[in-house]
């Protein structure tokens, strides 16, 4: 049963009183009907009969109360095809409908009237189809009114409209371009859900798809001088994988880096800071690295020059170094300082990785054979931590910084390797023990055979 505080369609104080009046009207109508029935059927079933009739009529009244604040708009418009028609169920599930808003809240008119002329009259404030250029202002009428919004959700922000006006979309709309996104393009017009609702078009996992609606449509974007492959690139990225596959909603989507209402590409200087909202260490290391000054001089943005902006892949140890898979050789050539540094760093990472795998293998073998190496395997995980830290440290572009972590890791792997050797010796010891035992057994077998022969050999002249 839908519970609504207001049955009127206008923004402003709740029209609960209006609803109550309507119920009274209905009941009075019903009472008249009952009186007329009873007049025609004196003594019809007596008290029980009257009770029965009252019960039926009450339930009917209750059912019609369900329909409550009458929405005559939907009566017709739910039967049409788009764009004139909307799905009544979808609208009903939207957050606006849940809060008691009706069609008239945005479109104006009189939703209580079944008369089409009256319902859609200018006198009733009917606005009809809202022009795209008017949409942000219309939404903003409520959503920028802090006092009003406090009555619904006090923690909801009320600066969306002002943010929008600073965005690329907002600026171009102001210049008369109605091609750009307005509120309803991202939020939809009639099925708006809060962003934390998985059905919402702006739920983090759905945002990229929503943006791609326009930005991946080459036909639609003709005339604008920006690429349309961002969504395709993003879909291959590690961020997309985090949000869409692993379900980690804290991973970035379009709006995380570009902003939502104030959407605009970050400037060259600010890209690094935007990435740093999550990747703090990498940014700190980068800032202290020789790359910071060099990139600024080149006008190259931090982070994305190596990692890309949309199609960010998970970097591997081969991303740094001098192979053609590495980022470094995009700028560095054989002989320069950066080239040598890259090679050194790469070698260091590879070595630590190899050592970890080598220790892992020998400890695995030992464990399978039943030698206890649990504490050692635990200690080895510290080396893995060191490798992770070393990989982060590569952003310093300084071999010495990276070496601090790789050396620490190598100390651990050394100990693990030694422990593995001890375990292998234990295995050997077992086999040696077995050999001793088997030797003794062989001795006994030979002795037994000899003894049997001795006692069973008949001496000359004697029969068995």
């Amino acid at each position: 049963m839908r519970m609504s505080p207001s049955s009127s369609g206008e923004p402003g104080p709740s029209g609960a009183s209006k609803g109550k009046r309507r119920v009274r009207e209905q009941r009075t109508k019903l009472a008249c009907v009952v009186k007329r029935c009873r007049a025609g059927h004196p003594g019809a079933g007596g008290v029980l009969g009257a009770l029965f009739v009252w019960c039926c009529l009450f339930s009917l009244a209750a059912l019609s109360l369900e329909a409550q604040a009458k929405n005559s708009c939907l009566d017709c418009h739910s039967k049409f095809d788009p764009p004139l028609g909307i799905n009544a169920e979808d609208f009903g599930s939207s957050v606006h409908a849940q809060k008691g808003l009706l069609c008239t809240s945005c479109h104006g008119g009189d939703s209580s009237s079944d008369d089409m002329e009256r319902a859609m009259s200018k006198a009733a404030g009917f606005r009809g189809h809202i022009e795209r250029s008017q949409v942000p202002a219309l939404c903003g009428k409520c959503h920028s009114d802090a006092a009003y919004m406090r009555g619904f959700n006090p923690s909801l922000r009320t600066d969306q409209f002002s943010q929008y006006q600073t965005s690329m979309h907002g600026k171009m709309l102001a210049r008369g371009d109605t091609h750009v996104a307005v509120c309803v393009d991202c939020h939809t017009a009639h099925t708006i859900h809060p962003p934390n609702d998985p059905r919402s078009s702006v739920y983090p996992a759905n945002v990229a798809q929503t943006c791609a609606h326009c930005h991946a449509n080459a036909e639609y974007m003709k005339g604008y001088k920006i690429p349309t492959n961002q969504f395709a690139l993003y879909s291959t990225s590690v961020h997309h994988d985090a949000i869409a596959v692993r379900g980690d909603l804290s991973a970035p989507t379009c709006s995380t880096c570009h902003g939502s209402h104030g959407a605009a590409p970050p400037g060259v200087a600010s890209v690094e800071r935007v990435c740093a909202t999550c990747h703090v260490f990498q940014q700190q290391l980068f800032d202290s690295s020789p790359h910071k000054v060099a990139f600024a001089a080149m006008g190259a943005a931090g982070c994305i020059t190596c990692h890309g902006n949309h199609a960010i892949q998970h970097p591997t140890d081969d991303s740094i170094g001098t192979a053609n898979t590495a980022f470094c050789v995009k700028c560095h050539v054989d002989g320069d300082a950066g080239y040598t540094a890259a090679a050194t760093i790469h070698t260091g990472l590879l070595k630590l990785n190899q050592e970890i795998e080598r220790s892992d293998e020998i400890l695995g073998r030992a464990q399978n054979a039943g030698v206890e190496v649990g504490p050692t395997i635990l200690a080895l995980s510290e080396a893995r931590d060191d490798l992770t830290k070393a990989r982060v440290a590569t952003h310093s572009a300084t071999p010495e910084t990276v070496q601090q972590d790789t050396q620490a890791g190598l100390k651990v792997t050394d100990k693990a390797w030694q422990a593995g050797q001890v375990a292998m010796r234990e295995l050997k010891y077992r086999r040696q023990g077995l050999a001793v035992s088997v030797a003794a057994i062989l001795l006994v077998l030979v002795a037994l055979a000899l003894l049997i022969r001795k006692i069973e050999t008949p001496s000359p002249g004697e029969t068995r």
Partner: protein
Amino acid sequence: MSVWQNAQKWLDERFGLHELREFMEHKTVPQHRYSHWYFFGGMTLFLFGIQVATGILLLLYYRPSPNEAYESVQYIMTQVRFGWLIRSIHSWSANLMIFTAAVHMFSVFFLKAYRKPRELTWLSGMLLLFLALGFGFSGYLLPWNTLSFFATKVGTDIAGQAPIIGKWILVFLRGGEDVTGATLTRFFGFHVAVLPGIATVLLAIHILLVQRFGMSVPPSVEAEWQATPSARHEMRFFPNFLLRELMAWYVALAILGGLAAFKPWELGVKADPFAPAPPGIRPEWYFMFMFQTLKMIPAKIWFLEGELLGILTFGLAFLLWVLLPFFDRGRGGRAQRFIVGAGVFALAYVVVMTFYAYVAK
């Protein structure tokens, strides 16, 4: 007189030791082309002794509760000095013992050593074989790893299929409706107390009966010896046969040591009752021929459930097998050949089905 001779005199005056000595001196073992089969009984006994010894040692460290069982076995394998050796020997020797017991049984069958007057020897021996299988089944659960947990589940499920009493058997075995810690405690009790107690009694009977009646000679050989008395050949048990048996036992020890060192029994992964059964759950090899048969029986035959029919058939087969001495009165002829044929079929079935179970998907 030496100390040793003094001691013997002391015992003899009280217990009539000389009678025992005379019996031992005169005990003989027939020698013929089938004599080598005589070793298998003693070998089974020897391996049982190994089981008792290693089992007692394992008891010093094992803990029969779901929280601690797996960990205690892991502890034995990795922390206790030579724990890996004791545990692996126990597990391998169990399998070897069941193998030698089966060989012993089939050799007795084909050499017709079950005939009068040795009917009760056969009976006690069959019961001992069932006990051995019970030892194997109950012991298998004790490490509480995934394989053992689910193998027990499947095995008790099948036991629960028995008609009428199946449900009671299942609840009795499991200590409840499902396989839980209660099952583990119960199986532990069976494995270290109940079954050993019964086995001791049955073993005593079985061995005493063997001493009472002596070693049986196969009918064909007996016939030959009747015809040519000089062909009869007997070997003294002490020391000749015993020395040979010692050799066999020492070889078995070497094999067990080698298996423990090169093919240690695996620890597996701790059982998680809430995880789904991993694919490929199956019982130990000595149950495989029955397991495979049940898998291959169609779901329904006439009005009977296939599995139930399979269980009933096996039950009937085992019952007939146990009652064998009462069918075979030694009168030869058609009945004789039928019994031999049945035996060959049984052996072939078990062997083929066991191999097939491992080869089939």
